[in-house]
Every structure is written in C-alpha cells, then in structure tokens.
C-alpha cells in the first residue's frame, strides 16, 4: 500500500519520514498510519519519492488582469470599449 505522509513521522526502525514524502508499506502498517492521521492513501502507480508533489496551479493563475491597451494616434491597435466617434 502506498501512502503520502501528512506530517513528519519516525517509525519503529528509526527511519524518519517528512511531510510530503510518499512511501510503500505493508497493509497493516499503512492502514495504521492512515487511521492515526499520519498518512493518506495514494495510488499504487505512484513512485515513492522524498520530494513533495508540486501543488497544481489554479486556472486563474495564468489569466492576465484586464488592462486597457493604449495606442498612439497613428496606430490602429486593439481597443477596449467603444470606438471614438468619427470626427
């Protein structure tokens, strides 16, 4: 059973796991760690690693704020809002 550590934990063999690490344990060990709130179960396809998995960036993180684009008098660039009336 593969688990992800939610907090630091030192096992009976004096091996210390840090929060964010993933590891594979036998079922009784894994179930006890989960029941004690030390770990959460992860997929069996996960490769145990000492690196915490990177947080997924929210979709909104890549959206550019709505900033009006100014263009010079001789340029016809993209504008927002109404076109000025023709003179």
């Amino acid at each position, binding site marked *: 059973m593969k688990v992800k550590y939610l907090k630091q934990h030192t096992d009976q*063999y004096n091996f210390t796991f840090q929060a964010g690490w*993933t*590891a594979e344990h036998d*079922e009784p060990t894994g179930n006890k760690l989960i029941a004690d709130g030390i770990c959460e179960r992860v997929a069996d396809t996960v490769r145990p690693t000492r690196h915490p998995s990177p947080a997924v960036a929210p979709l909104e993180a890549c959206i550019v704020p709505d900033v009006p684009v100014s263009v010079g008098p001789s340029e016809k660039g993209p504008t927002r809002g109404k076109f000025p009336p023709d003179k």
Partner: protein
Amino acid sequence: MAKNLKLYIGSTAVTCQVNASLNMSAATFETTCKDSGANAEFFPGTKSWTMSGEALFRYDATQGFEDFWDAWESQTALTAVFQTGVTGDLKFSGSTYITSLNADSSGNDEAVRYQFELQGTGALAKATV
C-alpha cells in the same frame, strides 16, 4: 504476484525494485561410517540465508541507494522483509548486513541500476503479514 513480492527494509519497500531474491542454504557434515553400507549419510549443520535485489537508481527514492550506502558505511544492521505486503500473506524477515552494493550506469539510453546483497544474521522468521 511477481509485481507485489518485494524486499522491504524495515517497514518500507525498496523504491522502484526490478528484482528481489531470498536464498536459504544449510551446511551438512558427513556421518558415513562402516554401518552406512553403500550410502553416504549426512547431518544438517548450520543454516544461512541471504536476500538480494536490484532497483532503478533515483536520488529522490524514499528507500533507495543512499539508504543502502548509509547502512553499508556505518555497518548498521537492517531488518529485511521479503513479502507482498498483503494482509494474510506469508512474509520472511530477519536482521541483515550489507555485503555488496553496486551501482551500474551502462550506455547512454539505459536506466541506471543498483544491486545489493544482504547477509542474514540469526534466524529467518516466517510470519503472516
């Protein structure tokens, strides 16, 4: 079962294993005498056992080459378990010392591997996961 039968060091499976082996042997001494007739006779002597394995090399492995190196360097005993980790299955475990640790980086397009051998000291215990 082959995918699940692994070597664990303590409570943790060796990360990204490729092979895992458990080997047991028993020495014998000959007790043939004139009363044995035409057949040689032997008596069992001391038993011994080893575990060995091979895994892909990763610097960030939870239980990997660095851990084996540390144990080899400090000559620390490791509890090795040969098991599936599935509740109800048999497991075989005991105390071991590292007798061999090799890393192999062959060619340009092959995964780096390392191999380890563990010499059992004392009894090899059979139990249920």
